[in-house]
């Protein structure tokens, strides 16, 4: 197994379209790193550059300490699982898994051992004679993973492998891949646009937007300390609520939203941080789970809201309302007696409010 390092990696198409800009991150040995971002953010391109399927415009990629920029995919000792599985339709499951080993001229007995071992890990033993078209989506996905496992590569690459599966199967495969990571103790790089997948699977997450890496961090750090408004909005489901307003006062600072529906005093700690922003426009961010119907502590302020939509999930309830004409969502614990049209008082915890620079979108710490 091996370490993967990207140093100032760029991808420019036709000399002008910059798809990936200065990508820098390290995937440590045995680590599970997830590249996440909205579609078109360059995450798949980054993965394909690591695989060698796309040329690198500038920068360096190291796998196991060696620069691999000029190496063809087959010499990088990697395996990749594709979004559409990329199984050879005319070959059986067994042949699909054995294909790479046959090309490497591995001994037939050894191929048999490895394929059967992988089939056992992935519960594919009874499907080895079938062709891909006779398999369900989840089984095909497992074959694609099996094809990667048998080759015992240094690095596993996954390109949105679960996006073609239905919701239930996706959750199941998510855990299976995580288990597999522990079992194989392999270095894995995983691309997804689904933040839940990223949060649940990765040891480390690389958040990308418009070809630029915004933050590389552990899932909890991304959630608690997002570097900017984009990361704050992208990580967490339902997404963070944002509202524009102004910091007012000199010593003891307060925030007042532009529409006037929110006004609260900052904590001493926050006042210190925000002193530079006195009389300036900023954006605040409030996570849906930090809005509650019961007053959580003294340091929280109330807002009167007119409930527009209620989404009961069983264990929790999503409540939609508007503040300053902007859609807000709160996540409440099991409230059965709320209905749309109700006017209720909700509480927001002051110390859980995030502040973002209006110009740069940076989290003000």
């Amino acid at each position, binding site marked *: 197994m091996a370490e993967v390092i990207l140093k100032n990696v760029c991808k420019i198409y036709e000399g002008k379209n910059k798809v990936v800009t200065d990508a820098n991150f390290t995937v440590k040995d045995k680590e599970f790193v997830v590249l996440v971002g909205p579609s078109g953010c360059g995450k798949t391109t980054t993965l394909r550059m690591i*695989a*060698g*399927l796309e040329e690198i415009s500038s920068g360096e990629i190291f796998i196991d300490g060696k620069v691999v920029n000029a190496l*063809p*995919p*087959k010499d990088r000792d*990697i*395996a*990749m699982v*594709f*979004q*559409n599985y*990329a199984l*050879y*339709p*005319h070959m059986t499951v067994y042949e699909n898994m054995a*294909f*790479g080993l046959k*090309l*490497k001229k591995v001994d037939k007995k050894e191929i048999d051992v490895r394929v059967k071992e992988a089939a056992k890990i992935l519960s594919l033993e009874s499907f080895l004679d079938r062709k891909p078209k006779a398999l369900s989506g989840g089984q095909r996905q497992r074959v694609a993973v099996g*094809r990667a496992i048998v*080759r015992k590569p240094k690095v596993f690459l996954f390109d949105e492998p679960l996006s073609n599966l239905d919701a239930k199967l996706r959750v199941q495969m998510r855990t299976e891949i995580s288990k597999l990571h522990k079992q194989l103790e392999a270095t894995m790089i995983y691309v997804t646009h689904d933040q839940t997948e990223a949060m649940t699977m990765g040891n480390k997450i690389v958040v990308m937007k418009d070809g630029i890496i915004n933050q590389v961090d552990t899932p909890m750090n991304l959630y608690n300390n997002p570097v900017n408004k984009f990361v704050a909005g992208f990580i967490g489901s339902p997404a963070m609520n944002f509202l524009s307003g102004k910091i007012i006062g000199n010593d003891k600072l307060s925030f007042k939203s532009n529409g006037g529906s929110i006004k609260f005093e900052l904590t001493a700690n926050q006042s210190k941080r925000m002193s530079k922003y006195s009389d300036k426009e900023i954006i605040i961010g409030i996570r849906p789970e930090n809005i509650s119907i019961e007053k959580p502590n003294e340091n929280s302020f109330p807002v009167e809201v007119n409930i527009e939509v209620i989404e009961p999930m069983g264990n929790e309830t999503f409540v939609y309302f508007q503040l300053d004409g902007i859609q807000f969502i709160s996540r409440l614990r099991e409230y059965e007696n709320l209905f749309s049209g109700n006017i209720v008082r909700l509480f927001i915890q002051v110390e859980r409010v995030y502040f973002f620079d209006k110009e740069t979108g940076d989290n003000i710490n």
Partner: protein
Amino acid sequence: MNFKQSQTAAYFFLAPALSAIFIFFFLPVIAAFIISFTDFDIYTLGNFSSVRFIGFNNYIKLFDDPLFYTALKNTFYFVIVAAPLSIAISLGAALLLNSKLVKFKAIFRLSYFIPVVTTLVAVAIVWRFIYHPKFGIINYLLSLIGIAPIDWLGDTTTAMPAIILMSVWKSFGYNMIIFIAGLQNIPEDLYEAASIEGASGWQKFKSITLPMLAPTTVFISIITMIGYFQFFAEPYIMTQGGPLNSTLSIVQYMYQEGFKWWNMGYSASIAFVFFFIIMIGTLIQLKFQKNT
């Protein structure tokens, strides 16, 4: 509406199309089949009552006719050489035009396809000039390297290869377009997966392109085989079946018997024997397709 009524309605709507097919397809085929058991000839055209049913006599005569066997042999020669050649060339051209290395693809695609849409008669006349022993460009080019002129269409050994070359040139563009469509249907990620697994260009071709193209190839083989079995205009225009019947094809022989000597009954029997030969060829290929 019950099932029977809806079935009647369905036939009612199908009637115009079915009657056209019946009148213009089944009726002539049935008529020809009946004629093949008669001595229908030029006298019959004058006096229809002179036609006589002669049972299998036409068929019996056919299997004793040396010219029929010559035509059959020539036709098989043509199909067995020209069809694989055409398929190989069209696949090669399709692979080239589908590769990322080639530029101006549209121009190449167009120029390879032009012969397909050109009238066969015009093409055959032009090629007759190309093959001309005195003024043809081929002999001129050969003369530059000191090779004596060859009478391409006048020699029994070169006439058929010359016709094959022209036919392949004329028709490969059609198969090429179908192959290109087949190639474009192969998902790119299969090649990418194979690259990662260490496959060379040849291994990718052998393990991905060829098997993925199998249905296309079988389809092309069948239509090419059927088309080539029926070759007629090429020898008719270029050699009239000569020299010494070395390019006489079955269809041409059928045409000669039917419209030169007016032996319609005999000609119809050739058509039906030929129909069975093509059908067997097609069945063999379909069987092959099922196995792939």
